[in-house]
């Protein structure tokens, strides 16, 4: 059924449809509306879950780690500083192979304190072992939560999934979405059956110490499983299409890319703006396109290679930066072409929209036109030079 709702409400409804047994979260802008709505559903008796109120994100993550370890489907959501406070537990959740789903309302990281959108928070935790899916719009955000539980709980995967959605732009944006029925979701997502769990009748230790004789294999197993997830995601999205009637690739999505001479690579809500710009430029006969990365972890290097190998000029947009190095997505896109015979002549890298600075259609056009010039490495777009003249001598 079509519903017109705020992004956070859409996510809350999607989570409800997934029937989590335990929800624990600490409110933080711009994630608050999601967990507020879920708490309301539980309080009103519309959702049969235990909502555990906690004093911090570190505790929220620890609660869902514990509940998931007892074999109960669990959910949490956070943003920015909250995700960073969870960081220690985030690594543990993946290391203990607990298929939790977490929504991150992508927000900039302090300092300076900033509540607006960029993707520095989740990008900073890219190495934690979690699967990371980035949503372009609220329909994707909705669908990715259902997909995320199915993927996470697959007995060959058993890894947590982070559904990353741009703070405010998606969480507070009001959109019409096709809300699935409970029957559809139940058909796609069977009840969770843990392969291992904390159980007094069958005692075992989860997350024990692994000395140098054991540790490396545990980490290698996660790395290999991430690669397995690459193969599984398209299968699960194909099944998703049969039940819900919406088709996703799940790894990457090309838009007007077949004959494109200039392609932008990006993640998240900015892809919508880029598609609009492409439609405008195509009318003027410009051969431009977009490659949207949906799955950042696992990183679909082969799919990216196939999509871009014949494109002469590529621009990579990052809403985050590895300070002192390169932009994270750009570095990995470039790495995908290392040692390959076919590759773009130019891969320029742009850092855009940090801390909620709007990425306008003009910014996107500027990037397309920059592709006719020299290759750029980690070029910051829309900087204000006058603000860089501050002096404290």
């Amino acid at each position: 059924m079509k519903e017109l709702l705020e992004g956070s409400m859409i996510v809350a409804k999607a989570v409800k449809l997934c029937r989590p047994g335990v929800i624990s979260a600490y409110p933080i802008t711009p994630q608050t509306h999601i967990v507020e709505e879920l708490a309301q559903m539980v309080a009103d008796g519309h959702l049969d879950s235990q909502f555990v109120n906690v004093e911090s994100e570190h505790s929220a993550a620890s609660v869902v780690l514990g509940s998931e370890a007892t074999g109960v489907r669990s959910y949490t959501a956070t943003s920015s500083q909250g995700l960073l406070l969870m960081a220690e537990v985030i690594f543990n959740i993946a290391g203990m192979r607990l298929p939790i789903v977490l929504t991150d309302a992508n927000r900039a990281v302090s300092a300076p304190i900033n509540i607006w959108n960029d993707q520095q928070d989740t990008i900073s935790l890219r190495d934690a072992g979690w699967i990371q899916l980035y949503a372009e719009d609220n329909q994707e955000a909705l669908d990715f939560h259902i997909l995320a539980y199915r993927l996470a709980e697959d007995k060959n995967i058993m890894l947590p999934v982070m559904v990353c959605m741009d703070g405010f732009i998606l969480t507070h944006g009001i959109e019409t979405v096709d809300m699935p029925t409970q029957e559809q979701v139940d058909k796609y997502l069977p009840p969770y059956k843990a392969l291992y769990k904390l159980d007094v009748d069958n005692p075992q230790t989860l997350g024990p110490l692994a000395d140098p004789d054991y540790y490396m294999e545990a980490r290698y197993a996660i790395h290999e499983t991430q690669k397995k997830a690459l193969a599984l995601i398209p299968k699960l999205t194909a099944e998703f299409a049969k039940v819900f009637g919406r088709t996703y690739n799940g790894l990457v999505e090309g838009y007007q890319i077949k004959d494109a001479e200039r392609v932008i690579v990006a993640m998240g809500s900015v892809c919508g703006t880029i598609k609009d710009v492409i439609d405008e430029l195509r009318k003027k006969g410009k051969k431009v396109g977009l490659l949207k990365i949906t799955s950042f972890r696992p990183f679909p290097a082969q799919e990216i290679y196939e999509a871009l190998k014949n494109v002469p000029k590529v621009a990579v947009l990052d809403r985050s930066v590895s300070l002192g190095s390169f932009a994270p997505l750009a570095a990995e896109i470039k790495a995908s072409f290392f040692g390959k015979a076919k590759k773009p002549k130019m891969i320029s890298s742009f850092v855009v929209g940090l801390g909620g600075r709007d990425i306008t259609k003009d910014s996107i056009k500027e990037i397309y036109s920059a592709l006719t010039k020299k290759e750029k490495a980690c070029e910051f777009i829309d900087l204000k030079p006058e603000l860089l003249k501050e002096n404290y001598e």
Partner: protein
Amino acid sequence: MFGPLVSKPGSSRKNKTGSWRVEARPVFLHKNCIGCKMCISVCPEGCILGTEKNKLEVDLAFCKGCGMCAVICPKKDIEMVKEESTDKSKE
């Protein structure tokens, strides 16, 4: 794929701890041993095996090299030897 993930009861026998040993390992000289078994009683890993004097041995797959056995031995019949030692007489 899963690596080592879950420990079940009884796993202290299965999970080897010998890699904790970094500096020295105990060598049982088997010269003056009186079979008092003080070494067995103080070993935190419980990895000293045997019943008769001059026949006690350490299981290096579990020994963490703490040296308690060498300290407690009233006959100084246990010696801590550097891990990298190649002295064949002390093996």
